[in-house]
């Protein structure tokens, strides 16, 4: 199992949990709602794991799914029936359309992080809809879910707006949403994104020698018959004693230290958020600015001049 599969295995549970939680809340017995969700999950998984590869099929499928979720809502208003439930199920499963970008080969780290964050945001929205009270007398489970989703979004926008204007502050819905299971699964998904970075590689994503990758024993250099290549004794000796790619022997894993520092930063922020929630956000923003300034400083510093040395 390679890095991609590990990441997929670690990332999948979080959105799956959120989707299942919504289905259990709204449409346990609503088969069309469930079918819509499973349809998107199946298609997203098929493209993510390479069962559907041709770009035409991939993009045609994505377009069809998006249209199936947007057109009925946008053009025909809200109606009842199995077709609408199917559409609602599709809306619920939308994160699986972009989930593959979290582990996809060739996706940049930035794409992976944003794809994960968008998935977690959608999961959070799903979970928030469970706490919204909607009319249950005339609507199906799917419709309840979409109505709840719209309410959550509206409440969130109102809350953010009131915070920005400072008038009659109301707590935004998403700020108050906290599902311990989802948080745990989200943390695992984050590990799935970050941990592959710790496997040493160059900027061109070429693997660097690492003990954990089974490169501990370097093969001895092969040498042709000296008569064949006409080398002098000194040249042969230089070749025989040349250095081969050697993994680190005194360091457990290069980059692990930075990972620990990042973990400590997260713990510190969590502690601050619990002890002094008023300052947590401000600290985060200031910390981000400080980090960016530090990066800029490191990148701009001219340390050692090139060239002009003895040979």
């Amino acid at each position, binding site marked *: 199992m390679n890095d991609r599969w590990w990441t997929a295995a670690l990332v999948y549970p979080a959105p799956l949990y959120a989707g299942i939680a919504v289905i259990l809340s709204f449409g346990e017995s609503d088969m069309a709602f469930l079918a819509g969700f499973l349809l998107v999950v199946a298609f997203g998984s098929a493209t993510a794991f390479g069962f559907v590869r041709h770009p035409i099929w991939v993009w045609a499928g994505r377009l069809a799914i998006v249209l199936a979720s947007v057109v009925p809502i946008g053009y025909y208003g809200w109606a009842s029936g199995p077709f609408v439930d199917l559409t609602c199920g599709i809306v619920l499963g939308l994160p699986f359309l972009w989930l593959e970008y979290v582990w996809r080969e060739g996706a*940049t*780290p*930035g*794409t*992976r*992080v*944003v794809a994960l*964050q968008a998935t977690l*945001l959608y999961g959070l929205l799903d979970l928030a809809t469970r706490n919204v009270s909607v009319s249950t007398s005339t609507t199906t489970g799917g419709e309840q879910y979409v109505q709840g989703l719209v309410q959550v979004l509206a409440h*969130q926008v109102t809350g*953010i707006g009131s*915070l920005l204007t400072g008038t009659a502050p109301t707590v935004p819905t*998403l*700020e108050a949403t*906290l599902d311990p299971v989802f948080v745990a699964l*989200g943390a695992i998904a984050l590990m799935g994104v*970050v941990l592959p*970075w710790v496997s*040493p*590689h*160059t*900027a061109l*994503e070429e693997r*660097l020698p690492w003990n954990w990758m089974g490169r501990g024993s370097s093969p001895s250099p*092969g040498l042709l018959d000296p008569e064949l*290549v*006409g080398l002098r004794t*000194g*040249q042969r*000796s*230089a*070749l025989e004693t*040349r*250095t*081969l*790619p050697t993994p*680190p022997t*005194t*360091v457990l894993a*290069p*980059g692990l*230290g*930075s990972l620990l*520092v*990042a973990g400590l930063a*997260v713990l510190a*922020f969590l502690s601050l958020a619990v002890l002094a929630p008023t300052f947590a956000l401000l600290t985060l923003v200031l910390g*981000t600015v400080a*980090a960016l300034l*530090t*990066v800029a400083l*490191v*990148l701009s*510093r001219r*340390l*050692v*001049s*090139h*060239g002009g040395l003895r*040979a």
Partner: protein
Amino acid sequence: MASSRIVLSPLGGSAIVGGLGALLIGLVTLNLFLLLVPLAVLALVTAELLSFDRATRGFGPEAFRYQRFENSSQVRIDGVGSMALDLEPVHGRPVYLEVFDPQPETFEVVLGSPRLVTWSTGTDPLRLAYVYRPRQRGRFRVGPTIITAHDPLGFAFRMTKLENRWDVVVTPSLSVEEATTVPPGQVGSAEAYRRRVGSGTEFRSLREYQPADDARKIAWRRSALEKIYVREHEEEAHPEILLMLDTGWEMRLGIPGQEALEQAIDGATLIAGQAIERSDRVALLTHADSLVEYVPPQRGPEGAEQLTAAFGRVALAPSPFRLPKALAAAQERLSAPTFIVLFSTLLNLEGAVEGAVTELRSRGHRLLVLCPEVESLFPTPEDPLAEETMGFARAPVQLQVERGIARLRDAGAAVVTYPAPSVREVAGEILSWITSGGSGP
């Protein structure tokens, strides 16, 4: 002056942008958990960059003691060369290092590698060594060695270079069997073959006068009334050969790697090798608009080595070839009657060519010009239209060459045109002609 600064890789830049994007999403939700994701990413990137900065502080050429050793400076085109570099870090900090020794594209690495990616303890020495096979004659440069320190997460790197360039001359293959040479002071078969009694200038012995002898050769001081002696002189069985190479810019005609100059060197090498095997003396003169190099007449394996090295050094000059000047330069340096074999495209033949050739002939030298057929220097296109276009482009060049050939022939020089791929066969025939006394091709 460039500096060794940390370069943020696309991976690192993307991670920062991704972290900021995630932060934006987190700020829209104000959810604690969604704020932790960008925090973790940005903290990781920042910590890694700071850690890499610390590990590579002082990274630069001064951070290494280095030495090239066991490096070939002259390689035969059918042989192999070796490069080795010892590198001792003095910065003392462990880091991933990539050492790369750039070599010309015409070098094919057959053993070892010019690139090493390894973990460096910061103190242990590293050794880069590899063997290459050259695919083209000429002077080439290896290095400077580039060292890159890699951040283990691929977010950044830092590069420096060592001023340790190394020049390698790739020579054509010109070998002379030791068995064909004659030990000094000993007259062997080869020497006997080379020298015979004739009309040369070097005194050999006295013999009794015979009625058919030239009266001017009578040694009057040694003769008496009862016996008259005549002087015998040695005649070189083969005159000396001067290989003259046009290295002007016109010799760049042809496809890369097989230009007219390379074809000429191929032919000249063959003549030199075979002539030296026959114990003849071969000189080399390269000329563009002025004299580039002159190698005096050489014999035996040592002479072959000198000529080999000189052939390796031949390079195109950024100036046109001046035949009259080249012939004058040759004339200044030649003492005995010599066969001058000139390899040239005869493009841009300017100046008093006729006078120079006449002057040369009056001194007893003979000029033979080998000129490649222009169309044979280029591959024939399969497409008729492309062939027609190429023919159209070649026409003025061919006309110029034909004019040059006519001028030289009128001046009394022998000019041989040859299809470029057959240069070795033609060169062999030319040598046979020279050794047979030069009764005109």
